Structure formats: structure tokens, C-alpha cells
């Protein structure tokens, strides 16, 4: 097995880095993939719980009264577009010579994340107002364990992104920033996939 084939990274240009750094990148990214698999189990169990508790309404309100499909659709558009802009950021990390487009794409991603989070919090508040807080029924408990956990992930990932931008201004686009952006990319796209499942199962499935 040749070293060149082991050390290739689809998402990053590490050709200029010393060999040890490339080996480290391999290890770190693989580790992060494994973490994401583990995180997927968390979401999987919560999805299972939601599906089981879907009928445990205890006489309380259900999806028809509580969900706002328009808002959920806007959230979906925002999050899917943010995956696209993050992809553009990854491309400019790989091919770009200037830092400016990279930062701009990241900022655009952050704006879209903020739109997503804003609409989502609005959804939650309106659910509370319509008489559907998590304490109302098992079904609502399951909803509020799953969907806000995804939102919490998006929030943490956004903070991570901001910190990476700050690191960029301190250290430039160094090895650690590159590796950070690569890992954050994995997380960001993973959260997108989770959202697609949430939108399909919870919102579309609930309102169907």
C-alpha cells in the first residue's frame, strides 16, 4: 500500500503539509466520523422514542394543531442552503488562495443557521402558546427531546464555526483550523441529514 493512497483527503489540500501532519489528519477525521456514528445512535434512539410515543397524546393537542409547516419548510430551506454554502466554504478552503471567500461563505452559513434557529425558536414558542409544552403529554415530551436537541447541535456547531473564524484571524488558515473546518463540515452535513429525517418523519409524517 502506498502512502499516497492512504493519505488522500477529498476535502482538503494537505499536499504542502509534512507527512506527519497528513497522518494526523487521517486519524483525527476518522475519529470524528466514529463520533458522528455514535451521535447518530443518540438521534436514532430518540426517533424510535418519538415514533413509539406518537400516539401518547393524553387528550392533548397533536401535530395538526401545533405544527406550522410553512415555518418548518423555511427552516428546511435555510438549513439545506447552509449545507451548500458550507460546501462552498470547503471548496474555497481546498482551492482558494485568498482567505476572503472562505470567511464570506462561512459567514453566510452562519446567517442561514441563525435564520434556521430563529424560525425554530419561534415554532417552539408558538407550540407552548397553543397549549403544547413538553409537560403536556408523552408525545410532546418526545418531540421536545428530539427536535430541540438538533437545534442545540446546530447552535454548538455555530459557536464552533465562530471560534474557527476567530482562530483564523489569530493564526491564519493553519493546520488546526483546516482540520477543524473539515470536522465541522462532517458535523454540519450530518445535522442536515438529521433535519431531513425530522422534517420527513415529524412534520410531513405528522401532518399527513
Amino acid at each position, binding site marked *: 500500500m502506498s502512502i499516497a493512497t492512504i493519505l488522500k483527503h477529498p476535502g482538503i489540500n494537505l499536499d504542502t503539509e509534512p507527512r506527519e501532519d497528513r497522518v494526523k489528519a487521517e486519524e483525527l477525521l476518522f*475519529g470524528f466520523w466514529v463520533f458522528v456514528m*455514535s451521535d447518530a445512535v443518540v438521534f436514532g434512539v430518540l426517533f424510535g422514542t418519538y415514533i413509539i410515543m406518537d400516539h401518547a397524546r393524553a387528550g392533548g393537542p397533536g401535530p395538526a394543531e401545533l405544527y406550522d409547516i410553512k415555518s418548518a419548510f423555511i427552516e428546511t430551506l435555510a438549513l439545506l442552503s447552509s449545507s451548500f454554502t458550507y460546501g462552498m466554504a470547503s471548496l474555497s478552503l481546498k482551492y482558494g488562495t485568498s482567505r476572503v471567500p472562505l470567511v464570506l461563505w462561512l459567514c453566510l452559513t452562519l446567517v442561514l443557521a441563525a435564520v434556521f434557529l430563529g424560525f425554530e425558536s419561534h415554532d417552539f414558542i408558538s407550540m407552548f402558546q397553543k397549549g403544547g409544552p*413538553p409537560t403536556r403529554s408523552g408525545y410532546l415530551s418526545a418531540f421536545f427531546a428530539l427536535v430541540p436537541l438538533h437545534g442545540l447541535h446546530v447552535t454548538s456547531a455555530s459557536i464552533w464555526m465562530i471560534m474557527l473564524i476567530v482562530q483564523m484571524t489569530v493564526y491564519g488558515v493553519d493546520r488546526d483550523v483546516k482540520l477543524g473546518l473539515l470536522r465541522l463540515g462532517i458535523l454540519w452535513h450530518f445535522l442536515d441529514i438529521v433535519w431531513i429525517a425530522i422534517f420527513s418523519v415529524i412534520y410531513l409524517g405528522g401532518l399527513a
Partner: protein
Amino acid sequence: MNGQAVLHFVFGRLGFHWLPFWDMLQEPTKAHIVNDSIATFAGALVLFGGALTFLLLTWYRAWGTLWSKWLTSVDHKRIGIMYIVVSFVMLARALIEAALMRGQQAFGYGGGFLSANHFGQLFSTHGTIMIFFMAMPFLTGVINFVMPQQIGARDVSFPVMNSVSLGLTTAGAALVMISLDIGKFSTGGWSGYPPYTEASFQPGVGPDYWIWAVSLSTVASMLTGINFAVTIYKRRAPGMTFFRMPLFTWTALCTSILMIFAMPPLTVATALLALDRYLGFHFFTNDLGGNMMNFANIFWLFGHPEVYILILPAFGVYSEVFSTFSGKTLYGYVSLVIATMSIAVMSFWVWLHHFFTMGQSADVNAVFGTATMLIGIPTGVKVYDWMLTMYRGRVRFTVPMIYALGFIILFVIGGVSGIILANPSVDYQVHNTLFLVAHFHNMLIPGLLFGMLAAYHFWFPKAFGFRLDERWGMAAAVCWILGFMLAFFPLYALGLLGYPRRSLGYFDPIYTPYMEVAFAGAGVILAAFTCLLIQLFVSVRRRREYAVPAGDPWDGRSLEWSLPAPPPEYNFSVLPRVTGRDAFTRQKEDGTAYRLPQKFADIEMPKNSAMGMIVCVGGFLMAFALVWHMWWLVALSALGLAGATIGRGFARDTEKIIPAHEVEREHRRWLEQVAAVRPVSRERENDSANVGLAAHPLMQAAE
């Protein structure tokens, strides 16, 4: 805000009435005096132990060394040793609790001396500690210490995360310990089934202690699993292909994979229970659509793989022990690997056998019962492989071998009782009785604990440079085996006689004789633990006599024995090239062991980091504050943890270089030592002539 409100804001639910001797002072009845005295003594023991450690460290001026060499160290060997220290401390407590419970039941005819609440706390902490704070840290410690050396690596993939995992585990252990001094622990057992652990039945702090202690440990184990798996996938030395890995490394890999996939369900289960208790959600409550069966399913989705997380590393240890002390290569290596992997995969589809009686249809039970029996097959394969490893070998009856032999016989008995329980119709008769308690102790003590104690004896000289005393070790092993049989075989009979598990006392004298034998067994087990302590003490005093600087006291077969004892921080001066299984035995046979490498290079190693300690302290404070509803402290420690994590992201200068000439000097010094000592034959393995250089068997024969 008035004074009361300020106090409540600062201290949350904390109050004097949570002290262990409060009831005794308020209402000095006999029951209160007995129970509170025991609880107070236990709490005082914790404080005394802490104070003694503090004083000793100050007296020997060891704080600086402790901080720089241990607490902030990211060396996998030191982290492994610290894990094992934690697990020994917790083992001591949980053993005393076990003896107390056996005592209660021995005198349980008519009620015994403990209150139901106290007894409930005892079996809950005993189980929680033994699983999460004895077994898990022990095996994590052993894997941490051994696995990187076996695959020819210098450290694990993520050394700082390794230290963070240790910090989280220790914080959880500390939380269980502090619950002796303030507040009461859960009485809901180690599995914490709701709705009994919900706020409506246990409004106090008990289940909260359980939730946060277990959560800390779970996150730690998940991170550890990632760390070990990535290390094994990415850090193997050149030539160390998968099918050349020592079997212990294989079991470590399977355990890690199980940790990655089985820990998240437990995180979810405890988190959902916490949401129920803290925010009034309705996951597992009796009303408004709560569904406790969901907890049972999620919990055992973790719980069953957990059983194999615990047992697989022990299987790995036994494989090394049988092979080394029989002087033979492991019989049926490939079948052992396949068996290990099969067990790991199958462990995910049998969880339902933990609740056959909870209302599924007979068909579902039959499927899971059959699946459970199937797991017996790969385990059986292993037992035959181990026996055939000994067959026609020159078996040496050393301490690890005694544990291993005890294990084989007792584990098969326990396994057979498991096959009985796997039959749902039988399970209906004996479920929730002491038969079950006997069964799983029969798997976990001879299986896991003997394995870990064998590992402790086996690798101790590698870690500290001197062997453990063989005579006291033998006494301990024999006491463990006899004590286990006395303490748990009567429980099978008691279970068949219908004695329910976790019950305080009884009104039928037929149980008494069995209970008394079991109590005597608990006494023998305490003697076994005492022997281990004496052994450690004696060995440390005779460390010069038992020293094995050359590093290979048992004529070992895998790469860790090719290193000095203790190994340098970077393990390997030059990364080894592996040409086959039993890598070190090959080196010894073809004469390439103990050679001076032609060329040394600079070695890059991670610098020390305080991250582990910050997470330990922050995690403990946050969990403690959550238990006691001190919200300001929750926020503060959460901010601290987040700040530390973000700050770590800004750290750049995290590696240090150990220059080649230093590595070469160390290596030459060790080779001079090796050249100066006489190789020892296996007959003299246990006397002071054994300084860690094994004579070649052919040379032995010539002599």
C-alpha cells in the same frame, strides 16, 4: 430577597437534615441508631480517606509530582494506572457493601438490622459502582496500559481526550462517594427503572445522584471507545496486520466498538429520566402517556452489549495468560477472533431477555430466547480453544493461571445457568429471584473480575518494574475462588426456593442456613481483598528483590514484553516491524530481540494537559449542583467547561520533541542492563533470579 430565599438560592436543596446522622439525633430509636451509625461510619471513612491522602501527599511533598507526572499526564500508561487505582478504591467500597447486605440477609429471619431504605441504597450503589466505577475503569485501565504497547504504538490516538475520559469517570466516582456524606442514594437499583425512580416516588436527591454519576461515566466510556477503536485502526506498527494482533487487542477492539454503539442509548435513557425529574416531561411517568417499557428497552439496548463490553477484555486477558503460561502459541487464533466478533455482533439482538416477563408475546420471547442461547456457541468455542492451548503445553501454575483455571470451570457453570434462564418458560419461574443474582455474579466475578485481577498480576511488573508477591497472590486467588463459590452457589438454591432478589428479610427459616453460608463466603471474599492489599504492601517493600528491569518476567509473547519495565514515555525507541503473530517470541527466536537499532530519530509526543483535571472538577461540580438544584453553580461550571473546551481549540503548541540522542542514551542504558543480567529458566520464574530476561526454551533444555 429575604434570608431564606438567599440561602435557598445559594445552597439549593442542601440542608442539615441530609447528613447521615440527622435522624439518629432527632429520633434516637434503635433502628435509626443502627442504620445511621453505619451510614455515618461509611461517610466518615470517605472523609478520613480523603484527609489521609491529602496529609500524606503534603507530608511527602508529593503534590507537584502528582500534578505534573500523573494528573496532567496524557501518557496512556499512567492514565491506565490511574483508572485502575480508581477502580480499586471503588471495589473496596462496593465489597464492604456486599458483605453488609449478606450480613443483613444472614440475620434477615424476622427482619434483620438494616432499614429497607438503607438496604435499597446498598444494593443500588453496589451495582452502580461495580459496573460503572469498578469494572469499566478496571478494563479501561488495562486496555489503556496494554493495547498501545501490544500494537507497537507510542500512545493512543487522542491522548488529551483519554485524560478527559479519566476525568469524567473520576468525577462520577466522586459523586457516588460524596453521596455517603450528604444526601441519600437512589433505592432504584443499578438499572434505575422508572416509574419508581420518578419524582413522584423518589422526590429526594437519590435518583439524581444515580443519573448524573452514570451519565458522567457513560460519556467517558463513549469517548474511550472512540479513542481505542481509532488507535487500533490507525496506529498499528508496520506489519501489525489485523490477523497478527494479539488476542487481547482484538477483544479491546470489539469492546470499543460496543462502547461506541451501546453507550449512547444509556446517555439517552438517563437524559430522558432527568427531563422527567427536572422539567416534568412524561417519558416514563405513570400518567399523561408516559411509557416505562421504553426505558426498559433503551436501557437494555445499552445493558446487554455492556455485559460483553465487560467480559470481552477479560477473555482477551485469559487468552494471553493461557498462551504465556503454557509456553505455547494460542490454539485456534482465527476461531477466537471470529468468536469474539460474533459475540460483539450478537450482543445487540438479545436485550429483550432481560424482561421476558414484561408482557411481550410468546413468539417474541421465543426469538430472543433462541438468540440468547446462540451466544453460548462462540463462548463455547473459546473455552475449547483455551483448553487446547494448555493441552501438551508446559503449564505453570502462577497466580494469573490460577485465576484463569478457576474462571474456566466456574464460568462454564455460570454459562449453563444462563442457558437455563434463556428459556423464557423457565425464566418465568425464577426471574427476579436470587437465582438470577447468582447467575450474573457467576458470570461477572469469575469472568470479568478474575480476568482483571489476573491482568493486574500479569502486567504489574511491566507497569512498575517489579513483580507482585506470588504467595500472597496465590492466597488471594484461592480465597477469591472459594469465597465466590461459598457466597453465590447458595444463591442458586435460594432462588429456586423462591427467594426474591433485593428483599430485606424473610419469615421462613428454611432460607437461613443458605444465607449463613453465603455470608461466610462474603467473609472469605473480604479476606481475598485483604490478601491483595497485603500483597501490594509486601511487594512494594521487596521491590528490589522482585525487580525485573529487563522487562520480560513471564517469557511473554507480544510486543509489550520487548520493552523495559517500566517502559519509557514513548514506549518504543524505534517502531517495531512485525512479521507475524506472537511478535516478541519471534524476535527472541530469530535473535532480533534486544538489538540496538541502527538509527534513532526524534520522537514527537503530546505535552501534558490540564484539560482532564478541569473536566474532572467542572464535571463533578456541575453534577453535584444539578443534584442539589444549585442553579448558579450549574451555570458557572457549564460556562467553565465550555470556556475550557473553546480555549483548548486555541492551543497550538501541544507537542514536544524528545531528541534522538536522549532516546538512544536511554535505549543503550537498558541494553547494558539486559546484558548484565542472567537469563532465567521458567522453573525459577518466581524467585529473585527472575530479573525479566527469559532463557530460550532450547537453551533451557540444553542446560
